[in-house]
């Protein structure tokens, strides 16, 4: 088996070589219509060792609903495979990748997700414009559901460094 296939299999703790391309994963995927490569094509790229799959938009379109994994007749963890691809790819400009960085930056500093700073961080670093989502934010605020003062529990910088290494996010 080629190096790329071995590597994604190990990270996802699954075996993409079992795939017989029935495309049930793609048929069940709620995000399929937004994808450039359908889930079964992503699996096929992985088993053929085509590393360019790491640049596919699909990697960051999957929203992790796990329907593909649950329904795969060959018991391949397709959702786990998408997580593995997101963990190793260097293509990190997609909105979801930026959102994840914003979320983890807050968790690292505060130990909690705080929606207002998260939204602002995402809008600024993701070049979304400051007012992106402002309508929802205002409705939440009016209902008393958008705390202006952040919740804190612990600074988790030390844990993040131990787990991700000095170069981690």
């Amino acid at each position, binding site marked *: 088996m080629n190096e790329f296939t071995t590597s994604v299999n190990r990270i996802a703790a699954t075996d993409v070589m079992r795939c017989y391309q029935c495309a049930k994963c793609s048929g069940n995927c709620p995000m399929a219509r937004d994808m450039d490569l359908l889930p079964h094509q992503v699996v096929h790229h992985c088993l053929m060792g085509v590393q360019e799959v790491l640049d596919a938009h699909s990697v960051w379109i999957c*929203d992790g609903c*796990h329907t593909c*994994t649950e329904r795969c007749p060959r018991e391949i*963890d397709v959702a786990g495979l998408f*997580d593995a691809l997101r963990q190793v790819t260097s293509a990190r400009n997609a909105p979801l990748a930026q959102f994840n960085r914003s979320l983890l930056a807050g968790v690292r500093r505060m*130990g*909690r997700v705080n929606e207002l700073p998260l939204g602002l961080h995402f809008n600024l670093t993701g070049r979304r414009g400051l007012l992106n989502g402002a309508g929802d934010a205002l409705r*939440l605020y009016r209902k008393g559901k958008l705390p202006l003062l952040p*919740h804190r529990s*612990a600074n988790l910088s030390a844990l993040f460094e131990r787990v991700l290494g000095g170069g981690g996010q």
Partner: protein
Amino acid sequence: MRLAYFPGCAAVGTGRELNSSVSAACAAYGIELVDIPGWVCCGASAAHMTSAALARSLPAVSLGKARQLGADGLLTACAACYNRLKLAELEIRDNPRVRAECEEATRAKLDGELAIYHAVEVFDPARLGALLATPTSVAPRLKGLKVACYYGCLLTRPKTVSVDPDPVNPSLMDDLVRACGLDTVDWPFKTECCGASMVLPRPESVSRLTGRLLDAAAACGAEAVVVACPLCHANLDLKQPTARRASANPVPIPVLYLTEVLALALGVPGSKLDLRRHTVPVPALV
């Protein structure tokens, strides 16, 4: 039953109705909740897309703190927190290498086992039925209300952590809701995805997925949707006006938490819950 309570970030922010209804329902039912001092975010869903080790270590912090409380287990009412906490707990329990890695990351002992429960698991329909048989001020307008129970993705997938023995057609919430005197509709979207945490990165996808859920619930005759996750609630309730823009005749559908239904049925007055904080009003029930 005495349970360590993990509210999760959403339940102390944009989903605070959930938090008040969990406290009220547990108190009325006789479950004692103990706070976990210093609990931290479970990492959903950014951590597992970033690093498998981080995805285990963040839940491990709270799993370690909960262990010290000597409770009968850990309770959360968020499907995403439940999923990440339970997956991490099972890995820590079953894999000594993972346990050592998490103990090193969190600098805490993770020995023994901690039972992880979602709120849908700790109420028993038979006991509820018995409790309700005694004449209380059961919210009269709840009786016979037709609701669609929405389980979403993370209560039943992956099936190793499913709260229901049938991850394809779960009935746990339906049983509880019926025990409270409501009617449930049969509908095919119980475990379809609402778009989860895509609400900021891809709002148009969330609108599409949420819109088709709500349209299906309406088409099947549901007067309300019952959920058990603050992320599902935000998508179905807060995003409902946007999500149903394309629908022909979008009658607003109130979205209730299961724990709100349980609390109301157990006699907690609507004024004690945060029902007024919902986007789609629930006046008929208050």
